[in-house]
């Protein structure tokens, strides 16, 4: 479904990605962990081309998509993204947040988009919040609207960039539940997160990244309980404690 080969990215003098390759099958959930500054977020953004990689190839369904003859907007329509800080459109209601993409990008007529939007909001448990503005929602509710917004584009895969890191502890559960439900429905997902419970429960594979490289890959059991690399052991030791 998603394949990445030898991604390289520099920000000025900073070498953020140093030849990262990975592959995710259809319906698979891949979790990426690693210390901050290790390039996880950059990697996600290179996959939906929010950031243009310096070199390397990104494949979606077997087609290389980081080519000049493919519009990055077209790629982003098919790969949904959920951000750490929600980034709900502050001037739109929850429902308008969800329907903006279908109406303005896909050209869906507003009535149909509205009906779909309400269904999606119901799916993340927010049917009654359709007309609330982001500032009137809790962090957990905002993040669930953000998930619905990404789903509204009917994506082939979803990217989650630390979706619970900015949340108060009391709201983490509801977001993780929504994500787990999505995984059960067979969505292909790449999730950057430090929620070990979620990772063990939902992911088959975990990648550990550090300093722009993938250091280790394995099942949750292997990564959390018997990591092979010293750096993985140190990192996991810190977050499990």
């Amino acid at each position: 479904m998603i394949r990445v080969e030898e991604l390289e990215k520099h920000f000025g003098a900073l070498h953020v990605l140093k030849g990262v390759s990975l592959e995710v099958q259809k319906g698979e959930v891949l979790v990426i962990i690693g210390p901050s500054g290790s390039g996880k977020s950059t990697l996600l953004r290179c996959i939906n081309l929010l950031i243009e990689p310096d070199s390397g190839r990104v494949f979606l369904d077997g087609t290389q998509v980081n080519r000049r003859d493919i519009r990055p907007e077209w790629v982003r329509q098919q790969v949904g993204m959920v951000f750490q800080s929600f980034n709900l459109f502050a001037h739109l209601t929850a429902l308008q947040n969800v329907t903006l993409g279908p109406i303005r990008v896909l050209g869906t007529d507003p009535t149909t988009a509205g009906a779909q939007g309400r269904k999606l909001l119901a799916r993340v448990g927010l049917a009654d919040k359709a007309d609330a503005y982001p500032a009137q929602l809790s962090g957990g509710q905002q993040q669930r609207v953000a998930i619905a917004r990404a789903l509204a584009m009917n994506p082939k895969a979803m990217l989650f960039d630390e979706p619970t890191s900015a949340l108060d502890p009391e709201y983490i559960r509801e977001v993780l539940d929504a994500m787990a439900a999505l995984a059960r429905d067979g969505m292909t997902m790449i999730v950057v997160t430090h929620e070990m419970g979620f990772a063990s429960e939902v992911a088959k594979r975990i990648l550990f990244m550090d300093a722009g490289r993938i250091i280790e890959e394995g099942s949750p059991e292997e990564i959390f309980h018997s990591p092979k690399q010293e750096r993985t052991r140190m990192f996991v030791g810190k977050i499990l404690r």
Partner: protein
Amino acid sequence: MPATFDEQRRSRVRIVDILLAILVTVGILAYILDVLALRWGLSTAYIGRSYPNYLKAAWISLYVTTIAYFIGMGIGFVLGWARSVRTLPLARVMAARRREAVAAADGGSPGAGLFLGTLLVYGIKYYVRRTADAYVAIIRGTPLFVQIVFVWSAVLVFYPRLDPLVQGLLAGVIALTANTGGYQSEIFRAGIQTVHSGQVEAGRAIGLSRWGAMRYIVLPQAVRLVIPPLTNEYIGLLKASSLLAVVGSVPELTTFGRSEAFQTFHIFEAFALVVGIYLLITVPVSKVVEWIERRYRIPGLGIQAPRTARV
């Protein structure tokens, strides 16, 4: 619904407030009238007779200002956007492209068209940005008075045969448009840059184009943020339109008032009318904008309802 004790008390307080305000205003007006009419011999007959002519002159001020303001808004938005875009020096971009092309060369040779495209896209971006910077520097760095005189003399030189009124109007509108365009670009730049970058990123992530993100996400938020400074700019521009008096051939409010003053020698009456009419325009404009602001206010975004002091 029965009013609570607190509400009743507050409404009583409000009535007292209003009465006090009216009393003070009437007192001040009476004093001014006394000074002007009785001690200086202000001719109310002149005012009553000629105020329609002043209103006509005010319409010219209003037209010139409004036309310049809205054309300037277009210029301001484009320049402001250009100035908020991050650009890179061309040499750096080309060097990066060359590196990339060499890296990709095993899959085929890089076409010259690719380089040309890059040069075009980044070159245009870079020079548009620099031009916008220079424009704003020139507009902000020189007096509006000088700008008007300069444009006016240019019009006189290039179109010497035009009617003086048309020459004056042309010069006035061009100078005011150029000026407000420069100032509004700074307002728009501030507005655009205040909208959190995550908002654009989220918009781009659902597949919106650069323009789409601007149109549907940044602008609706930025405009709400910059309504107060934009109003300020309009009022400022209306007042600045009085500088067209230097041109002389455009009978806008100040020009008209001045010529009346020195032809009829009703000097105080003339300028009292001019001042009064400027206020008559600017005060309602701010009130209308306040209403618009309230009407389009969104919870949690930008300027919130002002906290009023409770007695």
